[in-house]
């Protein structure tokens, strides 16, 4: 029954309605393109900023560490709509830092940047948590060995910690990317749904559902297909790397 519950919705998307018709509509491809562009940027940001943060949280002790860790995990339990609202209230034109941003000529809401921000906000805890766990699983002797061999914190991080933790980091990246692609609530509130600019695939499905079921279905099918491909290939890659480290 559990399998049916999970499989039926996926099967239905491919079988109900006309996929062919839906695929012909340009709107579908645009939305998909926006989804993947923005999620890629978001993933890059998460990795570049999240990895060192996770390393510090995993390997050092300091005052306020628990508080900081909780802060990074908070978006996980926050309803996405609330996240979107918060982002709008902070960075919108009349938000907390809105006036300062306007003065610099930066308008965030309803831009691609806003989509990236919304995705990063909701998805980064997934990556950071996984990364913390991956770094925490490293044999501490390896990091100590690097230090006794003259490696400072940066060298130890880049040349030992990251490579050894890379299977876990990869898994975290896949998870976070998937979450970013699927992000809807925060996106629609903060970035709106300007077709061709900020209308990501999930948003397009939601909005287009009433007008063109076929388009919605096509988008859904494409999303499933691409996501599945990414998920499987990432898993294979990660398994491959992990196997290389295991003792014979």
């Amino acid at each position, binding site marked *: 029954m559990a399998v049916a519950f999970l499989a039926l919705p996926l099967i239905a998307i491919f079988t109900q309605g006309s996929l062919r018709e839906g695929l012909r509509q340009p709107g579908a491809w645009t939305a998909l393109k926006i989804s993947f562009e923005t999620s890629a940027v978001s993933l890059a940001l998460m990795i570049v900023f999240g990895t060192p943060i996770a390393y510090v949280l995993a390997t050092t002790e300091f005052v306020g560490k628990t508080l900081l860790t909780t802060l990074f995990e908070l978006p996980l339990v926050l309803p996405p709509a609330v996240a979107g609202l918060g982002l709008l209230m902070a960075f919108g034109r009349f938000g907390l830092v809105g006036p300062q941003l306007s003065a610099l000529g930066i308008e965030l809401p309803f831009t691609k940047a806003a989509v990236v921000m919304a995705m990063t906000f909701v998805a980064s805890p997934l990556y950071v948590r996984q990364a913390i766990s991956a770094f925490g699983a490293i044999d501490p002797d390896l990091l100590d060995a690097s230090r006794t*061999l003259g*490696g400072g914190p940066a060298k130890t991080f880049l040349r030992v910690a990251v490579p050894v933790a890379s299977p876990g980091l990869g898994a975290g990246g896949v998870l976070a990317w998937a979450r970013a692609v699927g992000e809807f609530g925060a996106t629609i509130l903060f970035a709106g749904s300007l077709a061709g600019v900020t209308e990501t695939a999930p948003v397009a499905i939601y909005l287009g559902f009433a007008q063109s079921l076929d388009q919605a279905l096509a988008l859904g099918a494409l999303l499933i297909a691409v996501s599945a491909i990414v998920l499987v290939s990432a898993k294979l890659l990660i398994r491959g790397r992990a196997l290389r480290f295991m003792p014979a």
Partner: protein
Amino acid sequence: MVGPSGAGKSTTLRLIAGLVKPDSGRVICNGQTWYDGQRATPVEDRRVGFVFQDYALFPHMTVRANVAYGARLPVDPLLDQVGIAHLAKARPRKLSGGERQRVALARALASDPRLLLLDEPLSALDPSTRGRVAERLSETVRSAGVPALIVTHSYEEAVSLGEQVVVLERGKVTQSGEPHALLREPRTAFVARFAGLNYLEGNASGQDVVLDTGERIRLAEPAAGRVAVLIAPWEITIERSRPGGSSAQNHIPVLISSLVITANRARVGLGALTAEITADSARALALAEGQTVLASFKATAVQTIPLADEPEPSMRS
């Protein structure tokens, strides 16, 4: 450095390397103060070559890359010297224990350390390979010309690897000196047992000791009060019945609790005592578990260490 489990040997190595901060005290190496309660020289600046118990080889790098990590000396000659040049492109997970140990040693030596710290370098190995590897290790360390502090929990290893031995018990140094001095003049119960001596406790008055287990032992040198009684296993002879005229003054009836015969020797468990005799003798006497025999030894073979009236925990273990 030797000592029982939990004595603090590994911790001491880590304190010296700077991986752990002491609660108090100082760490000084060759005149340089590395830790004095205020400042701590960072690990990466101390130039200490550390060989970890499980070797801590970087799994994602080849042997050569491992040795080259942090190397200040040419890598390839070192690989030759340690005998692992043929493994340069291999990954750690494909190596045997002895090979991994050599890589770990080469990696530490390549950083041109001013001090080598080895944490039980042989305990991760099979007993069968240990002897060969120990010889090689000893050679390499000595020819490197770098002072080395080696932690081991085997007396034999301490004797073959060490020039000076320090005994650590519960965080305190209880004896230090030449390895053989541990056997000749053990100062604590741990040292005596560690060196392989039989250890019993009792109360002495003059040349007699009454053991806690009830037997009486005759001493050559008088003693008084609570003492630890030490007898080397090879000083004990086993007899079937009380001999007529023997210069040995001690003959204790004991039960054979175990019998292990190796190529030329037999280790006979006699309750609290262990005797070591030749395998030939064991066979000639037809010894077997469960038999009652006499354990004989001279009074001059018995050493005593005075114990405090209320024995301290470290003395008892």
